[in-house]
């Protein structure tokens, strides 16, 4: 756990949205570390705050949102920057965005401007962060496109997003994210909108590229299968908080938090005896607006203890090395 090995550290990150209806605590005290060249999986159901966490890191939370806490970014030159203190519209953060930390999104169609060629959009990222001329940037972009497996990149570079298929578009997005050789890639559900066969292609590609570029990845998804496939460590989020955090093996083979346990059991698994009854979690994920006191999961928790869970918020306890749980069962 020495600092040299860390790339990014979140300390008590809070992102609240101040709405007319009340304060929406999308991210409420999230802390974790990402090591260099490792992949962290951020998993949770819709509304758990995983995407907002990613946006908070880059400081691109949409309008009524406010970010507090610390986001310590260990740059290559051993400088540490607290991203949370930067002006979200300032130059410093802009120099980091798309350069040292990059991001890819779920919907590759809407994430690319429909009116600009993919080359234009990739080159923009290059030209913003590297002092090279347009021709060089173009060559670089073609090279990147080639790397992400787009056939005939010198031709494709001048095409518009809608001319590409979903898989190719996502590849282009990845090319755009990687063209400045970032230290950290935040992938926000990059394969959710894709077919399984294409998803497999993209996952494979990302693994290869990680090896090649030696970057860290924060991989955000709701699909536990994908998490199992690609990550080294996993943080399970529920309603703005991390409820369990551990290595991939621990999470899948020794889940502790009732939520994680139930979640894993509720998913049908290929190759199991069919038509078995699934275990499910009662109720649904509520909106993180005006939440009850106590553990956020207790209304749905089968192991809920009256007078304990509904009064206090359980702390995140390290039960084992590399395995933390936020539950009174493991206090």
């Amino acid at each position: 756990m020495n600092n040299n090995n860390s790339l990014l550290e979140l300390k008590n990150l809070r992102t609240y949205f101040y709405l007319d209806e009340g304060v929406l605590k999308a991210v409420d005290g999230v802390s974790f570390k990402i090591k260099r060249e490792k992949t962290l999986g951020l998993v949770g159901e819709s509304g758990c705050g995983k995407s907002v966490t990613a946006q908070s890191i880059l400081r691109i939370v949409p309008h009524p949102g406010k970010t507090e806490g610390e986001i310590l970014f260990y740059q290559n030159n051993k400088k540490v920057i607290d991203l949370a203190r930067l002006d979200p519209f300032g130059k410093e953060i802009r120099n980091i965005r798309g350069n040292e930390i990059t991001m890819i999104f779920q919907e590759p169609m809407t994430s690319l401007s429909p009116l600009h060629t993919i080359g234009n959009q990739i080159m923009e990222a290059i030209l913003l962060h590297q002092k090279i001329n347009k021709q060089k940037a173009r060559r670089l972009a073609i090279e990147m496109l080639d790397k992400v497996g787009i056939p005939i990149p010198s031709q494709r570079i001048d095409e518009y997003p809608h001319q590409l298929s979903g898989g190719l578009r996502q590849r282009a997005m990845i090319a755009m994210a990687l063209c400045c050789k970032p230290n950290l890639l935040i992938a926000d559900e990059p394969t959710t909108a894709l077919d399984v066969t294409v998803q497999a292609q993209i996952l494979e590609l990302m693994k290869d590229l990680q090896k090649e570029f030696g970057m860290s990845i924060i991989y955000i998804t709701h699909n536990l299968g994908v998490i199992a496939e690609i990550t080294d460590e996993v943080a399970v989020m529920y309603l703005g908080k991390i409820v369990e955090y551990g290595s991939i093996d621990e999470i899948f083979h020794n889940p502790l938090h009732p939520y994680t346990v139930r979640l894993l059991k509720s998913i049908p698994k290929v190759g199991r005896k069919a038509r078995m009854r699934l275990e499910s979690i009662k109720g649904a994920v509520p909106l993180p607006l005006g939440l009850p006191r106590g553990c956020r999961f207790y209304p749905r928790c089968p192991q809920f203890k009256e007078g304990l869970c509904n009064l206090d918020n359980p702390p995140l306890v390290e039960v084992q090395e590399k395995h933390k749980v936020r539950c009174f069962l493991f206090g």
Partner: protein
Amino acid sequence: MSEDNIKALLEIKNLKKYFYIEKGFWKKIVGYIKAVDGINLYVSKGETLGLVGESGCGKTTLGRCILRAIEPTGGEVLFRTEEGITVDITQLDKEDLRLIRKDMQMIFQDPYSSLDPRMTVFDIIGEPIVINKIAEGKELKDRVKDLVKVVGLNVKHLKRYPHAFSGGQRQRIGIARALAVNPKFIVADEPVSALDVSVQAQILNLMQDLQKEFNLTYLFISHDLSVIEHISDRVAVMYVGKVVELADTEELFFRPKHPYTEALLSAVPKLDPRLRMERIILLGEVANPANPPPGCYFHPRCNYAKAICKNVEPEWQKVGPDHWATCHRAGELNLRGVT
């Protein structure tokens, strides 16, 4: 297929649905998308037939064609009524269609757009009952209440509007609506894909329970192989408007005969980090149904493709007991199933 005809509740013969591509002022037809391209299937009473495939393969269109929610271009959809009469749904007039629809219902993918936001839960669930004049007045109320209980919703919430409910609850309302007319056959079009994982299990369980309780027959459409495997008795795999493989669930998952099925199975991420294995990575993406490749539509991505695959369209052939596939090499290949 013939030996199964007797117990089939529904039989689809050579069903086709082409969408025309129109162009210009005069709407000249310049081509067509073969969304459903000559499909043969049957569904037995009480079973769940899973229909799996990637986006754009035509599975939703097939589901809708069966109910004639959209007009099929050709083929037959034979349905056996309670009285044991077999009717061709594609040939029915409006009145008869309305009658037969009492027996066939649908559950939709999007729990948001499938409920009219301007109607209360009571009205939504009661609508099919009123339309088909099954009950009215107090009887209607009781019936709706029963349905609501059956799908696990609070009876007190009948006056609420859909906007008061979460996705899972909405899907329950949708199911209650489908059940309102006592159907025998339900087309479930991706009923869980828009839901959260934890809720998805609830709905799947509910559907299984209901199947038992009401002796329902499902055509379950999904792109998620794990869900399909979980719920189906038999599975049909679709690729670009055609069914490429059909078999019992276990047979298909463990002994696939079509390379596409194999690839599909291989591509599904396993829920176990220790099982990270070598997968079969297919090249490219699903073919464009408006402009499919010649021969076997799958051949450009197929690892086993031979010359014949590029030119000749493969036949729908029986490759085992209750196992059909559309592949030239289905007999010779030994493909890897789920391990």
